[in-house]
């Protein structure tokens, strides 16, 4: 019953997103399981022990969308899934703001979990976004996180 043409939605936007609305889009095929990941802006940089007042996200228009699409196609080749939505915000965001949504629907809940987890890991390491964190004293370009690279190891075939 899984449609041959899967539902794919990719949005790079300044606006916030509504998790309920996005979940409904992923439920369109009466599919049993939806797994959502929602990333939220933190108010504290633990590594450098600094408060974060806001952060600004920039990206590489065109490349971002095509990289995310490659990740989703790879996901479809690995698991039987019926829908994927990726929404990533750009521009200025404040602590507690939602920053990223990845939702995957499938007949089988484990596929939905694995697909969502897989997309998040690859998004973190391949999608061309850059964050700069700001407080009253300075701005600080966020460095690549080594644990994100390690996270990819679990998807080696």
């Amino acid at each position, binding site marked *: 019953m899984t449609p041959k043409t899967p539902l794919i939605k990719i949005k790079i936007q300044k606006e916030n997103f509504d998790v309920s609305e996005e979940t409904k889009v992923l439920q369109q095929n009466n599919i049993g399981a939806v797994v959502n990941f929602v*990333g939220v802006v933190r108010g504290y940089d633990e590594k450098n022990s600094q408060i974060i007042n806001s952060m600004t*996200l*920039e*990206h*590489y228009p*065109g*490349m971002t969308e*095509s990289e995310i699409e490659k990740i989703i196609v790879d996901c479809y080749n690995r698991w039987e899934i019926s829908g994927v939505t990726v929404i*990533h915000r750009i521009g200025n965001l404040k602590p507690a703001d939602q*920053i*990223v949504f990845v939702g995957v629907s499938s007949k089988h809940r484990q596929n939905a979990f694995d697909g969502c987890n897989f997309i*998040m890991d690859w*998004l*973190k*390491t*391949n*999608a*061309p*976004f*850059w*964050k*700069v964190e700001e407080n009253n004293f300075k701005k600080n*370009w*966020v*460095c*690549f*996180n080594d644990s*994100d690279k390690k996270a990819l190891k679990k998807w080696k075939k």
Partner: protein
Amino acid sequence: MIIKYFSWIKEHVGKSEEEIILPNHINNVDQLINYLNKLDKKYNIIFEKKELIKIAVNKTYSSFDKNINNSDEIAFFPPVTGG
């Protein structure tokens, strides 16, 4: 050729994008980097540690030995930090 810069690399170069005429003898990304390094010393700090730089040619991740020509779009940026 359009060259794009992102994140702190953009701030070092002082612009997000520039257009250059690629000299005929430059055939790959490595050669382009050498060319830019000689053009202006502002590029030196960026390309000093090449292993910290990511490259895209026509919006696809590429290696330093990737062949390029004047109609390509090249981007230099640090490792990504989205999500």
